[in-house]
């Protein structure tokens, strides 16, 4: 009984149905488009962060507490023990030590504060060779040499082959300086990283700091699914603690304050867009249905007079709204996926502030970019039909019949 009138009204009032479906589908498609865009941006940023930090890093608990004395470093014995534990985890592909120095680089009259990252050139866990755009990357046999960012090179007018003086402090607090030749220039997605970060062999970093210790271990995981990282980190933390090591892990997203802030920003923007579109769809459909139900008041009076109860009429009208919601939202998904495919095929690019290269914009379609807009549109449409349906079903029969 409940489906005859809603179905007939949807199918036979074609213009109104098409208008409503078009509005709902537009809202759904736009939501899907925006969510897909943010989804792609998040993934790209996540990948760049993993490129910068590795999947996860292990260091002493005090290091993560941001203490900067040498007690926070891992001595060779601790590092070896931790390496053995990490290597035994089935999801770990490889690991590598790192040691960071804070210091100054000087060339002629130019001086800049930098963070010199000492790493093992050619390691499997996190090598920066693919970032090098000029000169060459550090190689395992290099005992000296530095790779600097393009932005730093531009600021200090440096070229491959130039010599920089790197000044830092030793473990005991004394100044230490060394002239180092630039062997390569790298590019990265962030101008800030390019200006601040330089790469040196870890042996050089240790000799400048006068220590054999390392600061952290970068771990590369097998799983492509970045969301599994924290689970593996927890497992490693437990195993390391069981071995008596005061070593803890941090995942790539925990290490990147920028990423967390950006994701929060994206989520806020999407929430706002989805809310705005939902409100728009809500009020337009509310208006369309209110007018439509008003036109059909006599029809409602008739079916009530024939014995249809209030709640039965309310249910029928809600089903009509539900039908519009489902048709419109599904059409919106089809339109949104189509638009995304066209957008991705065209290949629009844009250079965000603070980045060094234009990035290709894309719409990433996943399960959540489809079901979330679908759910939002269906909910907004059904909610928008509640009020006119309630009003229509609560009218007195005799009053409804009087309306021509």
């Amino acid at each position, binding site marked *: 009984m409940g489906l005859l009138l809603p179905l*007939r009204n949807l199918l036979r009032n074609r213009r109104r149905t098409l208008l409503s479906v078009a509005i709902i589908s537009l809202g759904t498609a736009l939501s899907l488009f925006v969510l897909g865009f943010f989804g792609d941006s998040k993934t790209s940023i996540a990948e760049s962060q993993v490129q910068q930090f590795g999947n996860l890093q292990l260091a002493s608990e005090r290091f993560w507490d941001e203490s900067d004395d040498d007690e926070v470093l891992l001595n060779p014995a601790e590092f070896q023990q931790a390496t053995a534990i990490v290597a035994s985890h089935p999801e770990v592909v490889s690991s590598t030590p790192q040691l960071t120095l804070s210091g100054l680089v000087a060339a002629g009259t130019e001086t800049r504060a930098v963070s010199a990252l000492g790493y093992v050139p050619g390691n499997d866990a996190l090598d920066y060779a693919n970032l090098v755009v000029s000169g060459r990357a550090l190689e395992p046999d290099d005992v000296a040499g530095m790779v600097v960012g393009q932005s730093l090179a531009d600021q200090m007018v440096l070229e491959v082959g130039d010599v920089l003086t790197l000044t830092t402090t030793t473990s005991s607090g004394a100044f230490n300086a060394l002239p180092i030749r630039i062997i390569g220039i790298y590019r990265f997605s962030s101008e800030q990283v390019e200006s601040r970060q330089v790469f040196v062999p870890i042996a050089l970093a240790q000799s400048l700091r006068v220590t054999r210790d390392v600061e952290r271990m970068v771990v590369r995981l097998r799983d492509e699914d970045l969301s599994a990282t924290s689970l593996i980190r927890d497992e490693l933390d437990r195993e390391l603690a069981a071995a008596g090591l005061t070593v803890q892990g941090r995942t790539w997203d925990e290490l990147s304050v920028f990423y967390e802030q950006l994701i929060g920003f994206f989520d806020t923007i999407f929430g706002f867009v989805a809310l705005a579109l939902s409100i728009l769809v809500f009020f337009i459909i509310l208006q369309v249905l209110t007018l439509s139900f008003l036109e059909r008041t006599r029809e409602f009076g008739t079916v009530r007079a*024939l014995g249809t109860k209030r709640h039965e009429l309310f249910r029928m009208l809600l089903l009509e709204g539900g039908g519009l919601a489902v048709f419109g939202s599904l059409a919106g998904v089809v339109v949104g996926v189509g638009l995304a495919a066209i957008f991705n095929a065209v290949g629009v690019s844009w250079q965000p502030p603070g980045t060094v290269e234009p990035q290709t914009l894309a719409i990433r379609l996943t399960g959540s970019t489809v079901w979330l807009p679908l759910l939002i549109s269906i909910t907004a449409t059904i909610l928008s039909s509640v009020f006119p349906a309630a009003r229509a079903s609560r009218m007195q029969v005799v009053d409804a019949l009087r309306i021509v």
Partner: protein
Amino acid sequence: METSGRFCYEQGNVFLEASSLSKVYRMGATEVHALRGVDFQAHQGDFVVINGPSGSGKTSLLNQLALIDRPSSGEVYVEGTPTGSLAEGRLAEIRKAKIGLIFQTFNLVPVLSAMENVEYPLLLQRIPRNDRRKRVLEMLTEVGLADLANRRPDQLSGGQRQRVAIARALVTEPKMVLADEPTANLDSETGARIMDQMSKLNEQHCVVFVVVTHDPAVSKYGSRHVQIHDGELIEPKREEAVYGIAPSSA
């Protein structure tokens, strides 16, 4: 559904009764008394024609009898049950089960075909599909519209629409049919045919018909004639008005 007409005239078999029925409409500070203490009874098999000029209270009375409006005072009894205190849902149940309605402007649902319009009350009664379709086709055949079953109201003439409305009112085999100016929007020939059909159904199905009209041509079909004027009912003595002039014996 075939019933002997004689059964319908058994005394005391009151289907519908209105007692001291009043209806007052308030228009700002003004009160309009549409019905003033109306007493009315309809027995099974009655074909009651209520005549009266425009604004006399005919439609107001019919709305009360059809349980689609509530009186300001007084009571409507259906088969002895007072309806004044019943909830809206219960009134809908009574309308669905016992009352067929025919409107002056047909009031067919525009998006439904003739067949679906007639089928709708049976859907409300949750009659199984096969039985439902059979009864709808029988009823449409009875009103001569079987071949137009799939047409929508806007594809039918006024007379055809009214016959669909009659079929819709009768398909549930109601005990009473209330008709509001059933011929008002029809030409005289079509109106006569419609009234012949209603009269025939009254005889064959023993259904109470209460027809309000100001069309003198409709009056000849009544077994009882009631006048309404300024919200008051004027009825000849029952024994004179009813039992002598049933249409079947006219």
